[in-house]
C-alpha cells in the first residue's frame, strides 16, 4: 500500500517537473528581450552585458532553470511592474486564497445540492421528478456561467438587494460574512457542477441499485433510506470523487469569468489582467499555482481510492 502511494507521489513529482519546465519556458519564449525592457531605450553595450551577467542570462539554460526553480520554491517570484508589488505576495498570499475560497464554496455547494438531487432522480427513476431533474441538469450544463452570474446580480443584487454583488470577505476572519459574499459567485460557478454531479450520481446509482447486494441489503431488512444512502452511495463514492478531482481544472477556468463578473480579487482576475498587460511573471505564477493545485488534488484523489474501495487495497 505504501509502495503504491510512493509510486503515485513520484508520478506527481514528475508531472510537477514538466509543469515547472513549461512555466520556465513561458518566460523564455515571451517576445522581447527582458534586458532591453529593463534598460530603456538608450544603453551602452557594457551596461547590457553587465545586466545580462547580473541576471544570469549568460549561464546555460539548465543553470538558469535551476536558479529559477530555486527562487520559485523559496518564494522569490520576482516583481510585477504593473502592480509594483512582489509577485509572491500578490499571487500566492492575496489572490490564491480568494480563488480557493470560491472553489471550495462552489464545490461544497455542488456536492450538497448535486448528490441529493441525483440520488432522488435515481430512486424515482423514470418519474416526472427524474425528468425535471434531467431538464435542470441539461440547462445547468448548457447555460454559460457568466450569463447566469449577471442574471443573479440583476435579480438578487440589484432588483431585491438581498446579496452583495461584489467584494470579498475572508471567511476565516468572518465566516458568515464570507459566506454571505460568496453565495452569488459560488452559485454562478457551481451551476455546471451541480448539474454534472446530478447526472453522474443518477447514472452510477441507478446501476448500483440494480446490483444483487442492494437486493440482499433489503432482504435482510435494511430500511429503504439506509439501502440507498449507505449501501448505494458508498459504492458510487469512487466515480464521484474522481470526477470532482478531474473537473477541478474546469472549475478553476470558470473562476476566471466568475471573479471578473463579481469583481473578486482572485487568481482568475489576476491572470486575466496579467495576460492583458503582458505581465509574463504574473502569468507564470498563475500557471504554476493552478497547475500545481490541480496535480496535487488529483494526487489526493488517487491516494483516496483504496479508502473508497476496499477491493483496491492490496491483500
Amino acid at each position, binding site marked *: 500500500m505504501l509502495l503504491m502511494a510512493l509510486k503515485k507521489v513520484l508520478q506527481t513529482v514528475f508531472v510537477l517537473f514538466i509543469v515547472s519546465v513549461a512555466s520556465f519556458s513561458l518566460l523564455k519564449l515571451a517576445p522581447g528581450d527582458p534586458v532591453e525592457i529593463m534598460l530603456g531605450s538608450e544603453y551602452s553595450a557594457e551596461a547590457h552585458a553587465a545586466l545580462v551577467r547580473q541576471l544570469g542570462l549568460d549561464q546555460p539554460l539548465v543553470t538558469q532553470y535551476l536558479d529559477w526553480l530555486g527562487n520559485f520554491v523559496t518564494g522569490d517570484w520576482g516583481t510585477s511592474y504593473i502592480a509594483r508589488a512582489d509577485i509572491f505576495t500578490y499571487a500566492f498570499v492575496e489572490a490564491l486564497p480568494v480563488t480557493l475560497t470560491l472553489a471550495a464554496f462552489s464545490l461544497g455547494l455542488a456536492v450538497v445540492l448535486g448528490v441529493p438531487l441525483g440520488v432522488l432522480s435515481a430512486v424515482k427513476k423514470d418519474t416526472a421528478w427524474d425528468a425535471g431533474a434531467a431538464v435542470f441538469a441539461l440547462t445547468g450544463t448548457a447555460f454559460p456561467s457568466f450569463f447566469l452570474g449577471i442574471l443573479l446580480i440583476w435579480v438578487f443584487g440589484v432588483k431585491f438587494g438581498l446579496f452583495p454583488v461584489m467584494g470579498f470577505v475572508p471567511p476565516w476572519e468572518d465566516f458568515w460574512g464570507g459566506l454571505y459574499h460568496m453565495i452569488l459567485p459560488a452559485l454562478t460557478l457551481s451551476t455546471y457542477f451541480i448539474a454534472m454531479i446530478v447526472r453522474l450520481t443518477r447514472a452510477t446509482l441507478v446501476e448500483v441499485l440494480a446490483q444483487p447486494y442492494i437486493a*440482499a441489503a433489503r432482504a435482510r*431488512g435494511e430500511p429503504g433510506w439506509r439501502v440507498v444512502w449507505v449501501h448505494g452511495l458508498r459504492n458510487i463514492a469512487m466515480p464521484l470523487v474522481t470526477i470532482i478531482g478531474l473537473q477541478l481544472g474546469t472549475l478553476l477556468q470558470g473562476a476566471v469569468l466568475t471573479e471578473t463578473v463579481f469583481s473578486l480579487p482572485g487568481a482568475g482576475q489576476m491572470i486575466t489582467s496579467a495576460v492583458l498587460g503582458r505581465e509574463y511573471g504574473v502569468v507564470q505564477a498563475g500557471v504554476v499555482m493552478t497547475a500545481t493545485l490541480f496535480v496535487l488534488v488529483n494526487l489526493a484523489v488517487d491516494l483516496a481510492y483504496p479508502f473508497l474501495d*476496499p477491493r483496491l487495497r492490496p491483500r
Partner: protein
Amino acid sequence: MQTSTADPLLSVSGLTLHRGARRILDGVDLSLGRGETLALVGESGAGKSTIAVALMGLLRPSEARIEGRAELAGEGDLFGLPERRWSGLRGGRLAMVFQDAGAALNPCFTVGSQLTSVLRRKLGLGRAAARARAVELLDSVGINDAAARLSAYPHQLSGGMQQRVMVAIALACNPDLLFADEPTSALDVTIQAQIVRLILDQTRARGASCIFVLHDLALASQSCDRIVVLYAGQVMEAGSSAEVLKAPRHPYTRLLKSCVLEIGTARLEPPAGGVPPWEEMPAGCRFASRCPRALPRCAGEKPPLTQEGGRALACWNPE
C-alpha cells in the same frame, strides 16, 4: 394445493405476476408447513426465483404487478402489507440466501458490519453483544477463525466462504422461513453439496421452513421434503419428493426426470426444445407446445391444479 399440515406457515394462492405485458407467474399456488423444506424446480425462466423475490417483497411496484394472496401465519396477506412492515419481516421472520454470494455481499463493507447491522437492528443488541453473536454465527456455519473474519471484506473470502457468510446473515435472527435461491450455482461442484447440507442442517436445527430454488430435480428430491415443478410460471405438479420423482404424472416432470437419468448415460442435453418466446406462449397449459401428450384442448384451456392424496397436478392428460 393441499396444505401439508393443518396449520401452514405460508400459503400462496393465485400468485400472478406481470412485468409489463408479460405474465411471468400465472396463478401459482403453494403451501408450506412449519419446519418443512420445499423445492421449486424447473428450467430457467420457470419463475422460481421470481416467486422467492416476490414473497420477500423485494420487487418494487414499478418493476412488477402482483396479484394473488400470500398468507404468512400471524401476518395475514403479505401483499397487503405496507413497505414498513415488510422491511420489519425481512431479515427477521423472512430471510434469503442469494444465488451469487460474491455479488450479494456489499464490496464496500466488512463481513462483520453486514452481519452485526442485522443483529443490532433486529435484535436490538449492543455493539459488543452483536459482535459476540456474529462470531458464534460464523462459527456455526463452519468458518474458521471467525473473530478475525469479521474485519475481512467480501472479496478477501473464497466463494464458499462468502456463501457461508450469506447463510450466517440469513440465519442471524432465526427466521421462520428461509429462501435459498440456487445458493450453489456460483460455487465449485465440490463445495455445492456442503452448502446445501449446511443450509438444510441449520434450518432444521432451528425448526425453520425453507424454500429452495433449484433447477436440479435429483438434488431437490434428495434434499427437500416436497417438490413443486414449475414451467414458464405455472405449477405443473407438486407432491412429496419421493413420490414425484418415483412416479411423475405430469409429462413435464417426466421430461425433467429423463434429463436426470440421461446425465448418467453421459447425455447432457436440455429438455427437448425450449421454453417458447413470450409472444408464442400458449394461452392454456404453457407446456402444450412441447408436450408429447398434448391434446387439442391443452393449448387453449388451462388445466386446474387438482389435489389428490397429498399430490397436486395440472394436466388434461396425465400419465
